[in-house]
């Protein structure tokens, strides 16, 4: 099992948003998180990635196996596409960026400054970063924002290749990725009970 989340509760801005979330990812599995805006998909992913502590419960994964990709791509506009990827490759202790460039068709853009890319091209560069990290579990938050259908297919292909190589992916998204084999987890049943006014006295007892 690459990732196991048990009975996790997360809060955003001090307000609990999700509770009792449990999921598990085996090698080769993808899980898609669904739920309306504000349900806590991002918060849950950040909690699993270790960027914020969970209220309760735990996320267990092999050490050094997670990689997180959030809304922002972490691209430096003054560096070229290749330099951006090389930086992340060196941070994660790998060297090969050619596979990532090929997977997201960044070859013709490799020497261009990342600041001159379009929004969709930047996103492709941000997603290509996942391939150079060599990590097993991808935690992706809305990975397809500003991608066209062709690039979404490119992304689905990259995820499929990752799964075939024994990796796993946890993806929060609203659109259909074409990953028919992926399981779907609807977060709506895990919505945390609001702190109603009924509890007001209880706080002081």
């Amino acid at each position, binding site marked *: 099992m690459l990732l196991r989340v048990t009975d996790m509760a997360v809060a955003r801005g001090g307000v609990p948003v999700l509770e009792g979330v449990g999921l598990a990812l085996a090698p080769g599995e993808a899980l898609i998180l669904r739920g309306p805006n504000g349900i806590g998909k991002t918060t849950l992913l950040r909690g699993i990635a270790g960027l914020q502590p969970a209220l309760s419960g735990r996320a267990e994964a092999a050490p050094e196996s997670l990689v997180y990709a959030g809304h*922002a*791509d972490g691209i430096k506009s003054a560096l070229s596409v290749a330099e951006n990827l090389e930086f992340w490759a060196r941070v994660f202790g790998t060297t090969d960026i050619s596979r990532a460039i090929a997977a997201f068709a960044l070859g013709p853009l490799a020497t261009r400054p990342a600041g001159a890319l379009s929004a969709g091209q930047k996103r492709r560069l941000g997603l290509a970063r996942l391939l150079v990290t060599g990590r097993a579990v991808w935690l992706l938050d809305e990975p397809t924002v500003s991608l066209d259908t062709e690039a979404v297919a490119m992304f689905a292909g990259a995820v499929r290749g990752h799964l075939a190589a024994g990796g796993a992916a946890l993806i929060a998204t609203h659109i259909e990725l074409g990953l028919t084999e992926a399981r779907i987890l609807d977060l709506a049943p895990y919505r945390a009970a609001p702190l109603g006014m009924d509890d007001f006295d209880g706080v002081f007892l």
Partner: protein
Amino acid sequence: MIALLTRDMRLAVRAGGGFGLGLAFFLIVVVLVPFGVGPQSALLSKIAPGILWLGALLACLLSLDRIFALDHEDGSLDLLATSPLPMEGIVSVKALAHWLTTGLPLVLAAPVLGVLLSLPVQGFGWLVVSLALGTPALSVIGTFGAALTVGLKRGGLLLSLLVLPLYVPTLIFGAEVARRGAEGMALGTPLALLAGITCGTIALLPFASAAVLRVNLR
């Protein structure tokens, strides 16, 4: 770690990196002071060590908010926090990169600008020594302040208010070393204290900066 250092250095010297910002500010301050004070070279050479130290300190302050703000804006700070690099290592490298792009050029420019303030000849060596010893502390303390205010919109004012009091001991002992050096007096005590402050901040503050950064990224 080295990858992060080379990236930060590269970003600093490329367009919009703000490499020359502190240096240009230092230059302007030191050039303008003689105009403000007037043609009294005796007075100028007396206040030269203090002016040079103050100019270096303010130039350092000017570039602090860039340490983490840019990485926070484009999301790379989140990604770095989930990378194999330890947070303490990230903040140490950030402080080192800040010193290399801001502190070191100030140290190198100070003797040239000392001429403008008619600094006594025997003071040049000690001025460089005091700045070389003191500016790393400015960068490390400044990194701590930048970690405290990361994510705040226009946190520059708060950053200055937080950091300036922490800069006071470095300024006092640094300027004292430079002044005593210029006047040819014994300077063992302030030099030891300056070195102590720098070593202490380098040893301890990265842990505080890392802890603060973890809280701020939530």
